[in-house]
């Protein structure tokens, strides 16, 4: 909402400039978002008086005017406006002025005649959108005077960012009330003097409410014989500074009073009513109504209508109808001031997708008891500014009066919640300034005005007191109780360890969107069932991720496209799967992706393409955080290269999958490089986390090492050889290291050579060569007989 600073100054006496006012209001919760001058296009624009108007000799549409700007100063101006006439006063832009559209004014030759300035329309000055002709200024405006001053455009707009609970502050008086509470001066309310004629409104209009829940109160006045024209400049200026476009005197007046009191009103062209009556009812499903923006809207029974008993004339509280709109031909007016139920307005707004100034105010909660006051204010302004005869009386249907809420306030409770030492009189002063009535006593009885529908409980009143008292005056206190030492969340602790392990190995942590593209998910697994968002922001962000892989592949793509050569990524995140119950299953997973080559960015290393064993090394880092061992076994999965796809098992549980992503799938992610991926169930790993280990005594006797190299068929797995070695050895074999793998010229084709370093140690003595030879021989025999191994010299 936007309100003129000058308007606020008229309503309450305060001595603050705009910036001070803005920050003071912000600190009491009436937040000012920005402060801006009303017009920025009025430099070098003055009031000009047109002395003569002559036709242009070479251009039929143009006229040559002599314009006076101050005593004895005259200027020739070429003008094409239809309404230019002798004696008229109009804005004259001088050399140096910059108009709304960016045009810089200077002397120009207009088909042989020099024009020294430009007479301007409202639109050209950015005052309104009126471009029908040059702007006509009031006769009293002084020629040559600065236009900003002449038009009282020396004003500033305050832009408010108000929270939805504060219905009371959606008006100039509402803001003034907060200012009054801050500075102590009262709000000066406008008056409404009406000279009613003898004819009674009740005789010409009948009002009935079919839905008193949706419309608890409907009041109307009838005004006859109005002359629609432009509203006076002061009103247009106020509307302009408040961000509302001037239309005609009647519409401007209803908008003005809406801004003033916060109460929306509506004026109908009464001549267009089929019957002299107002009937408020719900729409029927499928009923169609053309709103004043010319759109045919299909209604349903959530929508409340104002009708004349035959046809609808407005959507209650939201928008008027085209048919009953006030136009320049209107003479008889039915003025509506009503109170509509917030939730009915909300449902109607949601169904229609239609927002308006009026709807916002009704939805947040208008004041049922200001209905006649606002109505009289509009009627008096119309009488004074647009002529017309106001019929006697208000036709006011208000079957069940809405009374102010009364509640009890314990001053001790205020101080208990806020940790303050406020006295009851201080609280009462604040409440009075906000127009709450207070009946003193040990506890205060507070009567909440009906313009504060948000205040219904003691705590709400406490907040009102706190916000005016000032949050900055509430003390700051550190620690009142509770235990200070708390244990860390084990999940977080373990995740931190896993991250540490991977970062130490050069992996970057990524965070990817949990809302994923169904096409990508289906590409990875055509059978995948996912949790689907019913109201997605787009078709490609529609499913909750069932796996971290698609997000990682997108991150790999992002990096490849920026020529990053070493891509080592991991994510720990939640995945979702339908559970058949109300909430889906959520589990945490850890996933890794590798692409490109390692160690490529340092002269001292040779870059090596990532292989499956790089991925396995990272998984081993995580495995070491647990007290269980990981086993890999080949498995088939359409997303992976069949030659490099393994199921990962920890203990007896399958925890995930790893391998090389199928190139055909990578293409769907626009990736042309090879990508290795692992995805593991973090929950199982977490459940297997090693408990705190106790120290193991360091061995007292030296180790002895023996290296052996054997040649076996290429198809023999390393793990089988290790198992044979293990089984042939006794407990003195403490470690076996796989030193080397060789295939090539030095061995026969179809064979490979593997070298092992065997580490022997005994707890109670130094081993002799003979001890070791005995074990070693047994191992070699075993390797020969089980795997056809030969020793390599």
């Amino acid at each position, binding site marked *: 909402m936007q309100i003129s600073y000058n308007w606020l100054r008229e309503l309450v006496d305060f001595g603050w400039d705009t910036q001070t006012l803005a920050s003071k209001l912000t600190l009491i919760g009436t937040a000012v978002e920005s402060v801006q001058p009303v017009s920025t296009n009025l430099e070098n624009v003055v009031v000009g008086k047109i002395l003569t108007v002559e036709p242009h000799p070479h251009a039929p549409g143009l006229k040559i005017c002599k314009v006076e700007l101050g005593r004895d100063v005259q200027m020739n101006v070429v003008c094409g406006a239809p309404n230019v006439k002798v004696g008229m006063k109009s804005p004259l832009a001088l050399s140096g002025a910059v108009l709304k559209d960016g045009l810089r004014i200077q002397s120009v030759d207009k088909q042989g005649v020099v024009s020294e300035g430009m007479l301007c329309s409202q639109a050209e000055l950015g005052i309104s959108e009126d471009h029908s002709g040059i702007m006509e200024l009031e006769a009293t405006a002084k020629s040559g005077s600065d236009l900003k001053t002449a038009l009282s455009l020396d004003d500033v707009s305050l832009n408010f960012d108000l929270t939805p609970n504060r219905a009371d502050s959606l008006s100039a008086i509402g803001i003034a009330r907060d200012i009054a509470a801050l500075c102590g001066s009262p709000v000066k309310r406008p008056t409404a003097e009406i000279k009613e004629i003898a004819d009674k409104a009740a005789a010409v209009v009948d009002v009935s409410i079919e839905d008193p829940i949706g419309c608890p109160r409907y009041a109307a006045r009838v005004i006859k014989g109005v002359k629609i024209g432009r509203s006076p400049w002061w009103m247009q200026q106020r509307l302009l500074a408040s961000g509302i476009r001037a239309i005609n005197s009647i519409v401007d007046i209803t908008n003005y009073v809406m801004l003033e009191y916060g109460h929306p009103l509506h004026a109908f062209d009464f001549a267009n009513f089929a019957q002299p009556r107002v009937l408020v009812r719900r729409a029927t499903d499928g009923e169609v109504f053309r709103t004043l923006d010319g759109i045919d809207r299909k209604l349903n029974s959530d929508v409340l209508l104002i009708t004349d008993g035959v046809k609808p004339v407005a959507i209650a509280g939201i928008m008027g109808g085209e048919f009953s709109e006030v136009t320049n031909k209107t003479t008889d007016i039915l003025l509506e001031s009503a109170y509509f139920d917030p939730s009915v307005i909300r449902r109607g707004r949601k169904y229609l997708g239609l927002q308006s100034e009026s709807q916002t105010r009704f939805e947040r909660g208008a004041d049922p008891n200001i209905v006649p006051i606002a109505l009289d204010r509009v009627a008096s302004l119309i009488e004074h500014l647009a002529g017309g005869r106001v019929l006697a009386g208000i036709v006011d249907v208000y079957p069940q009066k809405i009374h102010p809420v009364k509640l009890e306030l314990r001053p001790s409770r205020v101080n208990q919640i806020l940790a303050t030492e406020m006295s009851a009189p201080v609280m009462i002063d604040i409440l009075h300034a906000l127009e709450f009535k207070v009946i003193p006593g040990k506890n205060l009885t507070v009567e909440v005005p009906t313009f504060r529908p948000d205040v219904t409980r003691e705590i709400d009143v406490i907040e009102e007191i706190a916000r005016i008292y000032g949050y900055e005056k509430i003390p700051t206190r*550190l620690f009142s109780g509770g235990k200070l030492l708390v244990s860390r969340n084990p999940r977080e602790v373990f995740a931190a360890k896993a991250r540490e392990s991977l970062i130490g190995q050069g992996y970057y942590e990524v965070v990817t969107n949990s809302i994923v593209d169904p096409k990508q998910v289906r590409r990875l697994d055509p059978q995948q069932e996912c949790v689907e968002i019913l109201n997605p922001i787009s078709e490609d962000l529609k499913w909750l991720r069932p796996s971290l892989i698609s997000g990682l592949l997108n991150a790999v793509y992002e990096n490849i496209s920026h020529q990053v050569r*070493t891509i080592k*990524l991991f994510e720990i995140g939640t995945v979702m799967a339908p559970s058949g119950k109300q909430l889906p299953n959520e589990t945490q997973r850890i996933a890794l992706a590798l692409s490109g080559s390692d160690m490529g960015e340092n002269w001292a290393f040779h870059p090596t393409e990532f292989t499956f064993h790089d991925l396995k090394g990272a998984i081993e880092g995580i495995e070491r955080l647990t007290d269980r061992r990981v086993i890999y076994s080949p498995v088939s999965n359409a997303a992976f290269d069949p030659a490099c796809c393994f199921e990962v098992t920890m203990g007896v549980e399958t925890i995930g999958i790893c391998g090389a992503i199928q190139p055909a799938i990578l293409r769907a992610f626009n990736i042309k490089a090879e990508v290795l991926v692992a995805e593991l169930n973090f929950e199982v790993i977490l459940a297997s986390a090693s408990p705190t280990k106790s120290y193991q005594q360091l061995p007292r006797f030296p180790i002895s090492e023996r290296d052996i190299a054997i040649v076996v068929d290429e198809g023999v797995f390393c793990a089988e050889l290790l198992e044979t070695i293990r089984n042939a050895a006794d407990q003195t074999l403490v470690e076996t290291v796989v030193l080397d793998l060789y295939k090539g010229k030095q061995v026969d084709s179809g064979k490979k050579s593997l070298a092992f370093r065997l580490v022997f140690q005994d707890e109670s003595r130094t081993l002799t060569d003979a001890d070791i030879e005995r074990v070693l021989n047994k191992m070699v025999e075993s390797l020969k007989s089980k795997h056809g191994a030969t020793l390599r010299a």
Partner: protein
Amino acid sequence: MSDDRIAQIVTEAKAEIAQCNSADQIESLRVKYLGRKSAVVAVLRGLKDLDGEQRKVAGQQANEAKEQIELLLADHLQSIGGAKSNQSAGLDYTLPGRRYPEGKLHPITRTLNEIIDIFYGMGFEVALGPEVETEYYNFGALNFPPDHPARDMQDTFYVGKDVLLRTHTSPVQIREFEKRKPPVRIIAPGRSYRQEAISARSYCVFYQLEGFYVDHNVTFADLKGVLVAFAQTYFGDDVKLRFRPSFFPFTEPSAEVDIYCFLCGGKGCRLCKHEGWLEILGCGMIDPNVFKSVNYDPEVYSGYAFGMGIERIAMLKYRIDDIRLFFDNDIRFLRQF
């Protein structure tokens, strides 16, 4: 061998060492006087044939001589300029170091860790909750009445009837209150969602950290205290905070907290949109209706709650101007933290 003989060997060694002028010469003297075939080692080796007192005396003398000669060798080597290490051949010490590239934590994790550590030090436990929530936990129990404009403050993704992606981590409040009795002091970090088009300012996924404390006599002053302590620890001791009234359905009174713009010192700049203040979090005293929904008696207990956007905090701290960078996962961005 007599004492004199050993003393003589030491004297000879001393004289010969003094003549050396290269590391190689010194090394050959080391072999001559202390090597396996040297006189001193011969004495040490012969000790096992001696008995008792004699053995003790001879051993001591030989060891002393050995130490003396070692010292003479080392001193002289030092005095002629020492020996060359293996590092010396054509050393270009200006080549970059042989560094094993490390990875990095994502800036969101890093920021979360820093914030969690601060609250952990103030006695807050970490609790987590599901990202897909029911309407009840996300709205109803948090005093968002149905058909109330407050619900429009949150643009919500739905995945089923009354099932949605949580719009804040506040549902964890309810879940923890249901499990525990006061005092309860908890922070709840995690992913939240908003149904909004992706732009430089907004992403459909974001991280939130909710904190809350319920006990006897928890006041607004305690809320201010804990947040001032947090801000001073995280942003520096000279940070200035501003609490201004706001509205959240689950707190009453509610406040928005701003910090004094550290970039311009409050004068106004692009970072603070010329306001001099930067909004960092929302907070307030827990609404009695929230307590009622978990059967805590609001007359017996009171509490505060606060919630902050982690991306917002990280963007302020690292002056990041586009929220999408967090989710692009470009290593050139990630490696900067």
